[in-house]
């Protein structure tokens, strides 16, 4: 089976703007293959280059070396098959909720009336019907995430790139959003790359968890299949013995790297 998204032998080295001899390798020789309909989480300590990797997959960042292949084609420029959900606020604050959701359709030249109709339908699907006229600053953090989700999914991308999308939410809202994400995902099984530093979140959502080493020059150090049954409830599944077993196994592999990453941050 050919992967939907293939990052092969990716390295990213950043040069300091002031001093060309000062360089920082965020990601080193990383290969990540995402199959069709597969939900893959990438976990690793903070500052290990997870976002860098995702930006490479999105085409927002060119890797120093290595290739990105999307559905068998090498990627040049923006990855148009992918939707991206950012960690921080990415909605256009000057557009109301509905206009934000239909932005992608508008950019693609879909007729206004059809776009608004589909936008309304998506607002309903993410539980925000009636909020179309509100501006982002008038919504709560969880609601803004729903808008971002609808904004991404309305374009029906084959690949979802998600960069710690729920990390800014409180635990309850977060679990709610995770369940909603799983429900939306199970409807038409897109390929997902989900970045998180939260191992529990990674296990409860994914088919596969990839562990990255601490930066600099981070690379995958473990790849674990998650054979928990679906459909899942993210809050309940955390209490099952099998979940705890998997968690312990992955945590053993991660622990050393987390400590390394922590030591690195202390140094700075």
């Amino acid at each position, binding site marked *: 089976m050919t992967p939907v998204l293939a990052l092969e032998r990716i390295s990213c080295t950043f040069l300091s703007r002031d001093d060309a001899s000062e360089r920082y390798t965020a990601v080193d020789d990383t290969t990540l293959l995402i199959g069709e309909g597969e939900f893959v989480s990438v976990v690793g300590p903070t500052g290990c280059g997870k976002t860098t990797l995702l930006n490479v997959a*999105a085409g*927002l960042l060119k890797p120093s070396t290595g290739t990105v292949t999307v559905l068998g084609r090498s990627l040049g420029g*923006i*990855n*148009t098959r*992918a*939707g*991206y959900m*950012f960690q*921080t*606020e*990415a*909605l*256009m*604050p*000057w*557009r*109301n909720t509905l206009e934000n959701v239909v*932005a*992608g359709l508008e*950019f*693609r030249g879909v007729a206004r009336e059809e776009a608004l109709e589909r936008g309304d339908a998506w607002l309903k699907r993410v539980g925000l019907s009636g909020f179309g006229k509100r*501006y*982002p*600053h*008038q919504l709560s953090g969880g609601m803004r995430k729903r808008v971002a989700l609808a*904004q991404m999914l309305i*374009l029906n991308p084959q690949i979802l790139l998600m960069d710690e999308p729920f990390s800014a939410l409180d635990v309850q809202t977060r679990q709610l959003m995770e369940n909603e994400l799983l429900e939306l995902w199970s409807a038409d099984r897109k390929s997902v790359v989900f970045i998180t530093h939260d191992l529990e979140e990674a296990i409860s959502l994914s088919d596969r968890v990839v562990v990255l080493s601490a930066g600099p020059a981070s690379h995958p150090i473990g790849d674990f299949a998650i054979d928990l049954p679906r459909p899942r409830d993210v809050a309940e599944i955390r209490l099952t013995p099998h979940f705890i077993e998997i968690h312990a196994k992955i945590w053993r592999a991660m622990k050393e790297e987390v400590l390394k990453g922590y030591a690195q941050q202390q140094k700075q």
Partner: protein
Amino acid sequence: MPNSRSNRARSGRLRLRALQVLVLVLLVVIWHVLTSPTLLPPIYFAEANQAAFFFGEPVKVFARLWQWFVSGEIYEHLWVTLVETLLAFLIGTVSGVVIGLWLALSPTASAVLDPYIKAVNAMPRVILAPIFFVWFGLGIASKVALGVTLVFFIVFFNVYQGVREVSPVVLANARMLGASPRQLLRHVYVPSAMSWVFASLHNSVGLAFVGAVVGEYLGSAKGVGYLIHQAEGFFDMNTVVAGIVLLTAFALLLDWAVGLAERRLMVWQPRSIETERT
């Protein structure tokens, strides 16, 4: 009860307005008492009507304003000054927005032009007025040109800054959603710079008036600046002050219009919210 709440809010606003008017009344009364030759013995000046000579007298100032409007002689001058101001304001704003967007989005051009922009901005531009008289004559055009040089830079620097401060995440998101460079300009850069533009417009309203009035002052046959200049020649302080009051009132009016446009166009901006107090 919503009704009593809105009543309370309204009475709060009324109170504020009343206090503001009170300050104005107080200032005028103090002015009147200190300048009137008959009310107080001269405190500082040797003669009783010297204070009036230096500071004008409020009653005579208002009489002058009244007479201007009743006789209609002010309209011609006021019209000229307002046309100059509005033209300078519009041309300066539009060119500032366009060039600000262009330079902010093309790093090479902005790097090349950077020292020149700084130089022109640092230059005391009122000094250009005599040159503009030579180029554009003593009519409206030279005053507009002077106003444009003042307004342009304020708007330009704000747009430039506004574009630079576009959230990189919002930008990346728009690109992922498929926005072309042109769509990025229209849907991300311009709206993001708008809040900066409006902030700058409040400053540039005053400067557009400065351009018009200073231009008239230095050489013209019409306009409120011309009236003020003439009155100064006769040491007619009351007319000078009347001209200043008139210009201030119209500057406030224009600023209010800008504020109105801002509130209509910037509905998306969060405003500080006050808690209700009962």
